[in-house]
């Protein structure tokens, strides 16, 4: 049983990694009061940009992740122009970004359909990787999985312990007050949206250069939307987001091990599980209105013109 558990748990971490990146990015964006529903689109653009960079330069993931981040941030700027500079409807702008991103990535991806990349070898941490059970699960992952944990720590630390974090949260609670004190609200929100785009792009690039590693049209398959749902589930707190992502990673990876565990369900039912789990999780967290009300950034989704 334990032998079966190790690959499942190890796979959980890898499957959760794109969600951690995209979710942390969206969490920061929403903390500043902006709701960008374009995560799915940014992930896909990041995925194809990362894949193209990895394939063309020959530097693999080392080129793929930065390219994904850049492309994600660049597409996020389209959203920022419409939703922040023009104060257009944020939810609808996010949807437009998703539709645009799906189209753009498929358009570019046409040239990369039959490529495949070498992926990334695991990077076992000396000594720690030899611990039974925990070692192979936690310390024999690829470098990007460790990077996602570093990103979690950085975001959590920034939000709770730094002046910047305080400023971001203040803008999310009351952009009018922050503006009145003299902070450039729109500019800071632009920065947050760019960060969110870069993180979604990295998540996408991880999918296409490490996790799969090949380009398939629409390969994020709703992970961007699941990341948005995770932020709600996490009540805008990084640590809860991390655990939420692992929960989803586990549900996602389960379908590949179901047969070995003696679960004889049609593949489609297992593949639908992460989406059903998202609904369940949303229901559980939304049931008590106070939980959401108390944690919701007060200006979330509301247009702001100084």
């Amino acid at each position: 049983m334990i032998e079966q558990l190790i690959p499942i748990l190890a796979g959980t971490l890898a499957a959760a990694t794109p969600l951690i990146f995209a979710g942390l990015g969206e969490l920061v964006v929403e903390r500043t009061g902006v709701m960008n529903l374009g995560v799915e689109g940014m992930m896909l653009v990041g995925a194809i940009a990362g894949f193209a960079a990895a394939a063309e330069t020959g530097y693999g993931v080392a080129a793929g992740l930065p390219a994904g981040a850049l492309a994600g941030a660049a597409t996020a700027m389209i959203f920022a122009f419409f939703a922040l500079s023009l104060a257009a409807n944020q939810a609808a702008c996010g949807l437009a970004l998703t539709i645009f991103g799906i189209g753009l990535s498929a358009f570019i991806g046409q040239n990369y359909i039959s490529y495949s990349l070498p992926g990334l070898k695991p990077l076992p941490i000396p000594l720690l990787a030899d611990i039974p059970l925990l070692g192979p699960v936690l310390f024999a992952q690829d470098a990007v999985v460790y990077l996602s944990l570093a990103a979690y720590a950085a975001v959590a630390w920034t939000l709770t312990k730094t002046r910047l974090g305080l400023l971001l949260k203040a803008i999310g609670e009351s952009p009018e007050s922050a503006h009145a004190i003299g902070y450039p609200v729109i500019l800071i929100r632009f920065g947050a949206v760019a960060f969110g785009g870069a993180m979604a792009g990295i998540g996408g690039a991880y999918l296409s250069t490490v996790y799969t590693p090949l380009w398939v049209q629409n390969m994020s398959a709703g992970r961007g939307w699941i990341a948005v749902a995770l932020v709600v589930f996490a009540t805008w707190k990084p640590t809860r987001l991390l655990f939420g992502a692992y929960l989803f990673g586990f549900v996602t990876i389960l379908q590949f091990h179901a047969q070995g565990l003696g679960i004889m369900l049609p593949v489609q039912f297992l593949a639908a599980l992460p989406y059903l789990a998202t609904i369940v999780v949303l229901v559980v967290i939304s049931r008590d209105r106070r939980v959401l009300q108390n944690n919701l950034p007060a200006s979330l989704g509301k247009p702001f013109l100084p």
Partner: protein
Amino acid sequence: MHLLEPRARPSRLMRWTAPLIAIVATLLAGSLLFWSLGKPVLESFEVFFIQPMTSSYGWSELLIKACPLILIAEGLAIGFKARIYNIGAEGQLIIGALAGGGVAIYMDGSDSAWVMPAMILAGAIGGGLWGALPALLRTRFNAQETLTTLMLSYVASFILSFMVSGPWRDPEGMNFPQSIMFGDNALFAILLEGSRVNTSIYLTGAAVLAFWLFNARSFMHFQLEVGGHAPAASRYAGFSSHQTVWFSLVVSGITAGLAGVGEIAGPVGQLNLNISPGYGFAAIIVAYLGRLHALGIVLAGLLMALIYLGGEAAQVSLQMPFAITGIFQGMLLFFLLGSDVFIDNRLRRSA
């Protein structure tokens, strides 16, 4: 100092010119795109937007694509007025198609005239139920319908995949994930000789008429608008927000489900994995572009259908991926939302 300032009252002129501005801006951005790809700009536009309309066949194909878009968008517009954001019409379309297709498969070989009405009814019920589910989750558990409707559309596509590769797979279909081809009495009758235009167009026509009457005549419509614009006033007036949620999501589910039946009993003729090229999502743009107005949606639906046809033409004559359709759709929605800002705001005049 910001560039925009609020208008004293919303501009009626901008409300109707915004879509036109958005279309022009999309064309400009599109020409930039063609140019950056090294394609001849004017020729590309000709292929994309003019050629499809130069033949009667092209016009009939335009109608075929516009029908489901308009049908779904009329249903979505009801909810959008009340700010109920159903973005999972694609899933409701799929479940409607499955329900209608199930009837066609089980009644295959019967020569009853009731097959078609039964399919339509089943499609409406299927789509309506798939819309009712997020309504239940919203009213009972307060779960936001944006995410639940979308997640349910992924679930719907897995159900479709399961049904056509398992229980309903055509035994003589070389193992392709598809059902049997439907018999004649499970297909909408062709209206125009030599084209694929069929009687499902009446469904769309009925929806346009119904939505127009609903807008012009019903008290429910007034409740929806008040609920969307002034939730507090709506509560004070004693309008039930739960009723609004149920009504919006179930009605839009029904129209999407009907559109699904229109596809499988029309141009597609069976259940397979490609019953909709994203009509459920494109219809969101159609609803907004048509200003949530019954007839506006008809025009917007025709334009969106042209973008689909143009994408197909560009694939053939310009060797461009069909995905260009998605790029145009995204740009159109962005520019529309950008122009809509000027309904309530204007450029700040220098002091």
